[in-house]
């Protein structure tokens, strides 16, 4: 298959994704002409692309759908349930045409005949109606008078000599409206050449204000001859209202705003605004040449949405960036030893750049969770129909971004959790009514950042879990002893045990066999944790916590017997210094610190080290499930940004190190996976 076809396939599956999204929204809001427009546009692009890249079957099939939605656009046809169903099924049909390797063509053909007949029924039927849409409401054009400017202020070095304080000018300028300020430090000379009275900073400001350009000029009236000043109007409207611009306004010191790009977006927005108002004006008159317009609109949108890059290339980039960070650490160390001002300056500049490069490279690998949500919506819709339950699905924080490998890894566990909620969690309408609940259930997927972690929580308002029932089941299955004393929480946690399933009967949705233990394992494969909380009759929440990225972690560099180890900062709660005496005399590995009892692990013992420990050691309290558990190390070197490298074959069988990192001086530090450390040593000690 040639490259263009491949690209079309990728594009087409994106389009199908968009189509499903639009359909789901249209289902809620059948009167929305924008959605109909976008569905029409999607059909149109599938038809065009299909014809161009040898998918004639797709082209001819989408042609019919396109016609149908064109009639809707022209208000000759009304959106019906049947129409939505057909389109949903068409999405599947098109997907199977795209993926067909020739083996299923008969099946596809049959399916297509049926769908075609159903479409024809709509097109020929008497459902034509001219009352389906109300008159288009004319959107009121809000003329706020706010315009956006780019201002560059670069004072000459002598500016402060006549008593001018450039900061006041910037203060005054930003007082005019909404703003983003970029500061440039790069002109500051090294210490020897630094003149106290001279001014080295300069600024770029993006400003949205309702004041006119003269007001901006007026700010600099006294310093026209003492500064380089550039004032450019970049938009006739408020740039801070354009979501596409926002990422370009992230202030990164010493890196100028990408003015060309910002201007291009402003231009686009202006064109869109214009088109919108023109379209509104001419909607009632012109219907003829709307075809071209849509092609134009589509190509424009796709040209700005980004470029496709093979994921191996991104992986390569990430590897190189990781190497760069490691090399950078080495350079830092060298520069620190050789107290050369110029070398220090260059090193610091380079560090600044590598850090920005790292952040930018990472942001490339991030994908919003929304990417999964579309799939989930469809899943909830289809499954809830299948089991005859009414379930509403809500996604919050879908814009939260995650590393692409994490997105891939989390998809299946989340699907499983949703299936469980639909199948076992949410009760039937009758049961819900009897329990005094609304007949339709609700599942909420919520994603948000929490420190260096991303939290994804799935909450349903279903029946909840009964700890007693779970415990009984676990005893029946021989997973726990009959006389085990378990708290309710501990009982609920039993669902994570292998081979556990409380469902009375096997259903084809969540089935048996694959249980929550698999969810837990899959999540911990990507260094995440799963927690469940449930209250009987009210519902269940399953919370997944994931690291933001897999390849670089913020860590705490510690030493044990002159060897470096790294503990991820994200798990560290507090650190205390303790006397060695206190550890030796601790009873049952429990230590009393500031009035609280903490269990702890003495890594020197666990590692089997016999040389003498320092008199004062550090105990690091790490978060383990809901508790804090101490891990004792010799001393703490400091924070360190660790590039995670996998361990070699020889070390594959150990379980307590998640990887290794090369330090600035070339030595290797092992990264401790505290979760597994605690698990492993707990097991070992119990035996």
């Amino acid at each position: 298959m040639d490259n263009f076809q491949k690209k079309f396939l990728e594009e087409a599956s994106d389009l199908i994704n968009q189509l499903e999204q639009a359909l789901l929204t249209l289902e809620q809001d059948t009167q929305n002409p924008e959605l109909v427009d976008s569905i029409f546009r999607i059909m149109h692009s599938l038809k065009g692309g299909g014809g161009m890249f040898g998918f004639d079957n797709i082209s001819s099939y989408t042609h019919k759908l396109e016609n149908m939605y064109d009639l809707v656009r022209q208000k000759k046809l009304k959106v019906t349930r049947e129409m939505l169903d057909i389109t949903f099924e068409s999405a599947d049909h098109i997907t199977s045409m795209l993926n067909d390797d020739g083996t299923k063509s008969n099946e596809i053909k049959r399916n297509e005949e049926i769908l075609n007949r159903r479409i024809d029924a709509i097109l020929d039927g008497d459902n034509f109606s001219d009352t389906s849409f109300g008159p288009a409401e004319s959107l009121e054009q809000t003329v706020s008078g706010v315009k956006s400017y780019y201002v560059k202020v670069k004072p000459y070095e002598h500016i402060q000599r006549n008593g001018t304080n450039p900061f006041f000018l910037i203060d005054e300028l930003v007082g005019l409206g909404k703003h983003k300020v970029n500061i440039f430090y790069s002109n500051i000379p090294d210490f020897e050449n630094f003149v106290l009275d001279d001014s080295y900073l300069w600024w770029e400001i993006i400003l949205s204000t309702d004041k006119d350009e003269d007001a901006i000029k007026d700010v600099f009236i006294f310093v026209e001859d003492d500064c380089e000043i550039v004032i450019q109007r970049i938009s006739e409207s408020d740039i801070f209202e354009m979501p596409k611009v926002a990422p370009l306004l992230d202030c990164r010191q010493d890196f100028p705003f990408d003015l060309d790009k910002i201007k291009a977006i402003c231009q686009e927005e202006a064109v869109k605004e214009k088109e919108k108002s023109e379209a509104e004006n001419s909607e009632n008159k012109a219907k003829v040449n709307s075809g071209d317009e849509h092609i134009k609109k589509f190509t424009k949108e796709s040209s700005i949405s980004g470029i496709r890059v093979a994921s191996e290339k991104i992986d390569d980039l990430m590897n190189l960036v990781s190497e760069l960070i490691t090399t950078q650490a080495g350079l830092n160390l060298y520069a620190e030893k050789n107290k050369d001002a110029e070398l220090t300056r260059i090193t610091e500049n380079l560090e600044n750049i590598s850090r920005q490069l790292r952040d930018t490279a990472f942001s490339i690998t991030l994908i919003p969770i929304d990417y999964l949500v579309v799939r989930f919506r469809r899943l909830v819709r289809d499954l809830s129909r299948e089991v005859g339950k009414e379930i509403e699905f809500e996604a919050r924080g879908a814009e939260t971004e995650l590393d692409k490998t994490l997105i891939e890894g989390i998809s299946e566990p989340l699907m499983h959790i949703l299936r469980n909620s639909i199948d076992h969690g949410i009760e039937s309408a009758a049961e819900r009514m009897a329990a005094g609940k609304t007949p339709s259930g609700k599942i909420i997927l919520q994603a948000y950042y929490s420190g260096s972690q991303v939290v994804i929580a799935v909450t349903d308002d279903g029946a909840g879990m009964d700890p007693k029932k779970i415990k009984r089941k676990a005893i029946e299955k021989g997973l726990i002893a009959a006389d085990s004393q378990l708290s309710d929480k501990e009982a609920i946690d039993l669902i994570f045990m292998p081979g556990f399933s409380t469902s009375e009967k096997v259903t084809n949705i969540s089935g048996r066999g694959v249980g929550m233990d698999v969810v837990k394992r899959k999540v911990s494969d990507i260094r995440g944790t799963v927690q469940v909380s449930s209250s009987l009759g009210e519902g269940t929440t399953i919370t997944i916590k994931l690291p933001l990225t897999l390849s670089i972690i913020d860590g705490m560099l510690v030493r044990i017997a002159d060897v470096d180890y790294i503990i991820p900062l994200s798990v560290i709660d507090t650190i205390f210094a303790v006397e060695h005496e206190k550890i030796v005399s601790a009873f049952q590995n429990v230590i009393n610190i500031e009035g609280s009892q903490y269990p702890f692990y003495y890594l020197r013992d666990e590692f089997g080290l016999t040389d003498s420990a320092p008199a004062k050691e550090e105990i690091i309290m790490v978060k383990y499930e809901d508790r804090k558990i101490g891990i004792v190390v010799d001393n703490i070197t400091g924070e360190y940004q660790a590039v995670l490298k996998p361990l070699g074959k020889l070390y594959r069988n150990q379980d307590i190190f998640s990887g290794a990192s090369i330090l600035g001086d070339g030595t290797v530090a092992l990264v401790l996976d505290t979760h597994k450390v605690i698990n492993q040593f707990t097991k070992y000690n119990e035996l």
Partner: protein
Amino acid sequence: MAKTILIVDDSESIREVVNFTLQNAGFEVFAAGNGIEAQKFLDGRTIDLVITDLHMPEMDGIGLIKYIRATAGYNRVPILFLTTESQLAKKIEAKDAGATGWIIKPFVPAKLLAAISKVIR
């Protein structure tokens, strides 16, 4: 603490208008009738801003500006001078001497305060 401003002008009415406006705006105001008086006043004191007329007997505004810039401890004090639109050449001369900015006569209180807010905060 209130910012301190020295107004230097040979016209008493100007001094009073400026004094009144600035005191109402919360500044602590001192006044001098010409450059020499201003010099005497400044000797050993700190001040946050000097506003001076250009045309004055004894020592004129340009001379005062030059003196202030040349005196240790004052070389960074902002200086505004009072001028009329027509005096472009004077404006350049004053800026070259080290003035920070200017206030165009006649002025309304708001304009005076706007000019001041550009140089002290």
